[in-house]
Every structure is written in structure tokens, then in C-alpha cells.
């Protein structure tokens, strides 16, 4: 079959099962756009290429399928960078396609030429510059394979303009030949036995469930393991949803803003089994003090994660989809009453300090998030932004479903939520998708409201508007003499902005208005925005001070001490 390079791209994407791409056009991809209407692929016109990358990432996280974004050369390509870095940090399978100047111009600083393969080298799993049409089908095949196998990640394909315009014989390969791409297939039986023995012998064992559990689709196996071994489990931020947070053995999110009982369990455990988590510093605190009393087992698909941050006692390199089923038959039911009772006591103490127990008419963000959970019973997909709002969402929304919290963890990219939600909604058209964001982060990609309207997406938006870059303000209050330098933030009237885009919205100032406002949004057919004017200087607690060990937390004051 003879095709142009542009046709080859779309033909190959169709064969990879792609039905939606997120992008913005330009001179170096004009051939691609010209060929697009011939193929059954829906193109979502974003308003910024960063948003296109986040949308592809959101699509991938929500569905487990590869998300695809598209940008022109030069500024189009550089705009993708933050989105690719976000996907890379969180191991999200994305394929980014960029146009490049025509082959004869490469290296001449031609108009809109940028070395995007050079720029994205450290933030992609792999990337390609295609200057020969004969390589194009193989490259696309490889790119999708690399993006989704092993530890997933973004792959960028930069295609010279003349390659898109050229004609060539098209044959899509059935198989990939990539001798340098290793997906672990080593025999795991011996470390699995050892892990089972350690788990059986442990008196105070604890599992950490990371994003890897979700990426591997091993949520069900995790629950089986937890129940059979009677062992409590904490999650990372991105591990939320790996096990229902309603499960009695789930202790919720650990780390810098984890609940006290969660972090205490982590520091008092005598065995920590990490499942698909890379021991990020926001989880561990100073590694020298992490798991002081524990032996540590690290299960990961990426061998380079072993001993990278935390030195472990047992490494188990493999896919959780294989490891957990191998482990489950070997673990024994053990009585862990004493350990679980201790955790239970810590848990009660934490509950006493919960701000929601406080009698007050203040419009606090915790209340807003809990009401959102209550109104939806958690049966929605939440896409959270970054900052205090992200932590309140993680703490007060009770996630009982898998892949129902999408958030930028590793890079902590403000502005992620709205564009990512667009991708999520395309991936999950029958789900209600909620954006939770701060007033700062929301303004970083606010232009995507136009995409929401153009694509008729019924996305609901909750802005926790505190008039500050709140998370930074909190640090300034606690650790920088209360000097609010560069953090007070003037926002627009978000409901009016929404209205200008054609999206209905409400401004909520009183606690009593929260419930009806959320109810209206939940039951509206189209998009809806609520601007919650929350208490401005509310802080996220508990908090582990930067550099402090994970069991030393700044706690919430007890209810009786609260004003």
C-alpha cells in the first residue's frame, strides 16, 4: 500500500487502537492535519500544547491505554515539555507526535526549528527523530510498544515535514524487534518465597501500595493479599485507589500530609513491603530514618528503582500482575490483633482531631471536599490539581474505586487538572468527571474551558479559592517567618469567566450553600463551575516538616483546643 508519511501516521495510530488525539496544528504538522479527516480518529483541538500533553496523560491514566498528543515544531513542541515531564515522572503511557522542519533544514536554525528530541531526552522513556519515510511505520510500532510495556512512560516521535509529505510503501510490522528494551521476565520464585517467609514472620508488617499497583492492574490481587495475610496497607498519593479506602485494612495516604496514624504505622512497622512505589521523598522523609525498625522488601518492575532512594533487604523485580498471584498462596493467615489494635488507637486519636468534628460556620475546604464525596458517594472520577487543594482532596474524598483519582504526583504540575480532565472524560465518557483545583493552578490552564465547551464535555469544576498560592503560603507561615512573599493572588470572578465561555457557575461563600451548589452541579447535564471562597489561611495538617522524620508531625489541634 502506498501512502504519504502523514497517512502512515494515522493508519498506524488506527492500528494501535487510537481513536482520540489531543493537539494543536501548525506549519510542520500541516500534512498530518491534511490527512487526518480520512481516518476514524477524533482530534480534540486544545488551546495550549501543554494542555494537549496533560489531556493525553489524563486519558492514559484513566483508561490504561496509550494517550496521544500532537504539536507542531518549535514552540508547539516546547509547549509539550511540562506535560511530558509530568507523564514521565508518573510513568504514564503517552505518545507525543511533533512535526520537525524539513530534513534539508535540520540543523540550520530554520524557522520554528527546535531540537525537541534533545530537549526531551531526560523526560521521555525514549524518543525518535524520523528523517526517512521507510522508518516511519517501525518507529510508530516501537513507540507504542515502549510506551505501554514494562514501566510505562512517554515516547516522543519527531517527524520531519518532508517525511510527512513523501510517499512510500506502507507495511505495518506485526512485531517489534527491540533487543535493548527489557521487560523483566526473570524467575521470581525464589525471592517470592523469601518475601512470603518474611511477611509470615513479621509481627508488625505493612504494605505500601504505589502507582505501580494500578498501572499493573493488580488492585484485585492486592486486596486478596491484604485480606489473606491480614496486613494493613498505606498508599502513596498516586496509589490511592489501589485498594478501596473504605477497606478496614487500608490506612490511607502516607507521607508529608498523611494522617498521623498512617505515618506512625509506617515508622513502627517491622516489615515494609513496597509494591510499585519508588520511595519518593514526599513519602519517606529523610531516608536515613525511614523504616527505622523495619526490614524492607521492594517490589518493582523497574530494576533501577531498587536501592535508588532506600536501601532494601529484599528486591523483587517483576510485574505485580505476576508477583502478587505468586505471593498470595505462600502467605499465611496470622493473628495481628496487637498490631492492628495499636494502629486502631492512633486512628481514634486522629479522628478526635479531625476538623470536620468542629462546630463552625467557616467555609473550610475540608468540608467542601467531604460534601463532594457525600453528594457523589465517591462514584465519580476526580482530577485534582496541585497545592493544598490536592492534599485536601486526597485526605477528605474517600476513594473506593480504582483509577478514580488522577493527579500529578511526581512533578506536582499546577495547571494539570483541567486539561487532564478533558482527556479523562474522553477516555471515560460515561463517568462524571470532577476537577478540584486551587485558584492559582486553575489559572494556569484556564483557557481549556474553551475546549470543554467546544467538545461539549460535562466536566464539573470545584475551585478551592483561598486567594493565595496556598501551599507556598503555608510553608511561609510555618517555616519562613510568616512573610507572604509572592503568594497573595488576585483571581478573577471565576463564575463570570465560566459564563463568558458559556459554562454555568456559582460562587459559594457560605457553608450552607455548599450542599445545594454541589447538588446542582452533580445533576446538571453539561459542564459546571463552582468557585468556593474558602477560609483563606487554612492549612493542610498533619504536616511533616521538610527534612523531619516521617513520624514527627505537626498535628491538628484537638477538637477541644480548636477555636
Amino acid at each position: 500500500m502506498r501512502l504519504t508519511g502523514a497517512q502512515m501516521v494515522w493508519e498506524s495510530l488506527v492500528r494501535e487502537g487510537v481513536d482520540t488525539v489531543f493537539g494543536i496544528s501548525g506549519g510542520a504538522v500541516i500534512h498530518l492535519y491534511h490527512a487526518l479527516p480520512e481516518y476514524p480518529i477524533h482530534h480534540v483541538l486544545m488551546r495550549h500544547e501543554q494542555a494537549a500533553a496533560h489531556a493525553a496523560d489524563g486519558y492514559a491514566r484513566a483508561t490504561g491505554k496509550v494517550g496521544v498528543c500532537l504539536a507542531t515544531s518549535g514552540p508547539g513542541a516546547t509547549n509539550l515539555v511540562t506535560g511530558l515531564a509530568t507523564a514521565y515522572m508518573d510513568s504514564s503511557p503517552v505518545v507525543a507526535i511533533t512535526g520537525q522542519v524539513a530534513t534539508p533544514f535540520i540543523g540550520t536554525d530554520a524557522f520554528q526549528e527546535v531540537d525537541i528530541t534533545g530537549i526531551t531526552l531526560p523526560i521521555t522513556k525514549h524518543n525518535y527523530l524520523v528523517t526517512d519515510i521507510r522508518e516511519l511505520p517501525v518507529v510508530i510500532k516501537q513507540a507504542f510498544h515502549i510506551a505501554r510495556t514494562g514501566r510505562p512512560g512517554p515516547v516522543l516521535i519527531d517527524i520531519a515535514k518532508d517525511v510527512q509529505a513523501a510517499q512510500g510503501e506502507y507495511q505495518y510490522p506485526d512485531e517489534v524487534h527491540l533487543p535493548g528494551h527489557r521487560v523483566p521476565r526473570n524467575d521470581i520464585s525464589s525471592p517470592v518465597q523469601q518475601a512470603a517467609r518474611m511477611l509470615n514472620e513479621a509481627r508488625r508488617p505493612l504494605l505500601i501500595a504505589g502507582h505501580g499497583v494500578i498501572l499493573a492492574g493488580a488492585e484485585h490481587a492486592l486486596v486478596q493479599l491484604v485480606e489473606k495475610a491480614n496486613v494493613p496497607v498505606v498508599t502513596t498519593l498516586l496509589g490511592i485507589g489501589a485498594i478501596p479506602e473504605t477497606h478496614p485494612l487500608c490506612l490511607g495516604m502516607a507521607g508529608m500530609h498523611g494522617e498521623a496514624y498512617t505515618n506512625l504505622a509506617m515508622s513502627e512497622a517491622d516489615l515494609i513491603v513496597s509494591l510499585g512505589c519508588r520511595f519518593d521523598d514526599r513519602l519517606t522523609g529523610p531516608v536515613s530514618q525511614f523504616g527505622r525498625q523495619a526490614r524492607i522488601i521492594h517490589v518493582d518492575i523497574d530494576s533501577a528503582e531498587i536501592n535508588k532512594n532506600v536501601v532494601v533487604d529484599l528486591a523483587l523485580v517483576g510485574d505485580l500482575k505476576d508477583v502478587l498471584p505468586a505471593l498470595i498462596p505462600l502467605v499465611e493467615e496470622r493473628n495481628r490483633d496487637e498490631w492492628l489494635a495499636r494502629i486502631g488507637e492512633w486512628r481514634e486519636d486522629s479522628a478526635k482531631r479531625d476538623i470536620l468534628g468542629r462546630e463552625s460556620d467557616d467555609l473550610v475546604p475540608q468540608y467542601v471536599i467531604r460534601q463532594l464525596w457525600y453528594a457523589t458517594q465517591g462514584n465519580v472520577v476526580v482530577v485534582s490539581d496541585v497545592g493544598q487543594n490536592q492534599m485536601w482532596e486526597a485526605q477528605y474524598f474517600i476513594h473506593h474505586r480504582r483509577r478514580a483519582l488522577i493527579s500529578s504526583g511526581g512533578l506536582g504540575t499546577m495547571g494539570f487538572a483541567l486539561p487532564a480532565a478533558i482527556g479523562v472524560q474522553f477516555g471515560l465518557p460515561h463517568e462524571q468527571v470532577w476537577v478540584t483545583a486551587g485558584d492559582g493552578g486553575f489559572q494556569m490552564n484556564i483557557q481549556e474551558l474553551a475546549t470543554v465547551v467546544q467538545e461539549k464535555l460535562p466536566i464539573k469544576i470545584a475551585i478551592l479559592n483561598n486567594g493565595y498560592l496556598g501551599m507556598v503560603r503555608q510553608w511561609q507561615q510555618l517555616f519562613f517567618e510568616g512573610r507572604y512573599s509572592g503568594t497573595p493572588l488576585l483571581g478573577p470572578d471565576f463564575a463570570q469567566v465560566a459564563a463568558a465561555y458559556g459554562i454555568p457557575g456559582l460562587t459559594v461563600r457560605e457553608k450552607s450553600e455548599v450542599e445545594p451548589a454541589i447538588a446542582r452541579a452533580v445533576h446538571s447535564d453539561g459542564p459546571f463551575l463552582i468557585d468556593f471562597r474558602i477560609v483563606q489561611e487554612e492549612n493542610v495538617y498533619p504536616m511533616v516538616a521538610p527534612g523531619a522524620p516521617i513520624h514527627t508531625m505537626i498535628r491538628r489541634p484537638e477538637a477541644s483546643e480548636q477555636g
Partner: protein
Amino acid sequence: MKHTVVALMEDKPGVLNRVSGLFRRRNYNIESLSVGHSETPGISRMTVVVEGDERVVDQVIHQLEKLINVTQVFNVTHQPTVIRELALIKVKATAGTRTEIMELANVFRARIVDVSATSLTVEITGPEEKVNSLIGLLRPYGIEELARTGRVAMVRGGNGHSDEPDDAPQATSESK
């Protein structure tokens, strides 16, 4: 401690950039790096000398293995290996010192590869220590130019490098 790591990689544009970018980004302490063709067409062979403990070298190996263009990585530090480096040393020479320098070179089985009115160029091959000693001895005469290739290494005996590459990383049992 110094470790010697040998990596085989596809001979494609940009691959060296990927490798050196990785070393820079991960903040690895690379003493030397040398690349050239291997016995297989299309595959280059790189020898890297890494400074660090076992954990660091394990990290280097596993990160290198993640590069799609890198096909195999071996840590040859603890194996019997032939280790060589080549250096070209241009040293000042006068009528008075020329013979002395040539004798020194002789002792090291180095060769004089170029002679001019004011200098001699010496070529020496050997383990780094040997190269270092000759350089040390020539320094007083005045070294005008120096080019070293960095270490290349090959495991002794056996049938090529087909012995098992490093697979799963080892957990250390040392305390944290």
C-alpha cells in the same frame, strides 16, 4: 572505588548523547568513557569507569539497561580483565634531553611516533598506572600536549562476552 562497566549499544546518531546525558542527569561520577566499534556491525562498545560504591555502580548499570539503544551491560570490575589505555604525549626535547626521553620511553615499551626539532611524541599503551607513571616521568621535561583515550577493557579467556549479563539487582543486607 573505581568500577569498570562495559556496555554494548546500537551505533545510531544520538546514542552517545543519551548515555552521557544519563550520567550527567543522575549525577554519576564518571572517570572515563571510551567508545568504538565492537565485533558486531552496528553495535558499539563502550567502556566506562565509574567512581562510587557497589550501590552506585548497580544504579549506573540498571539505568544504562533502561536505555532502549543499549543492548547489554556488564560489570567487569571483579573479573579478570585486560585493561588498556592509549596515550599520545608530546614532550619538549632538546639535543640534551632527547636521548634521555627516548630511553625512558624504551623502558615503558612506548614508541616514539614523531620527532621534531623541539619535541618528541610518545605513544604508550597499557594499564592506566603505567601510563600515569610515564607521564609523571616526562612532566619535568615539559609536556606540550597530551591525549588519553580512557580505559578499554575485555574479560580474559572464555568465549566473548556471552557470559550472563547482570540481571536483577541484588538487595544489600547491610543495615540502612
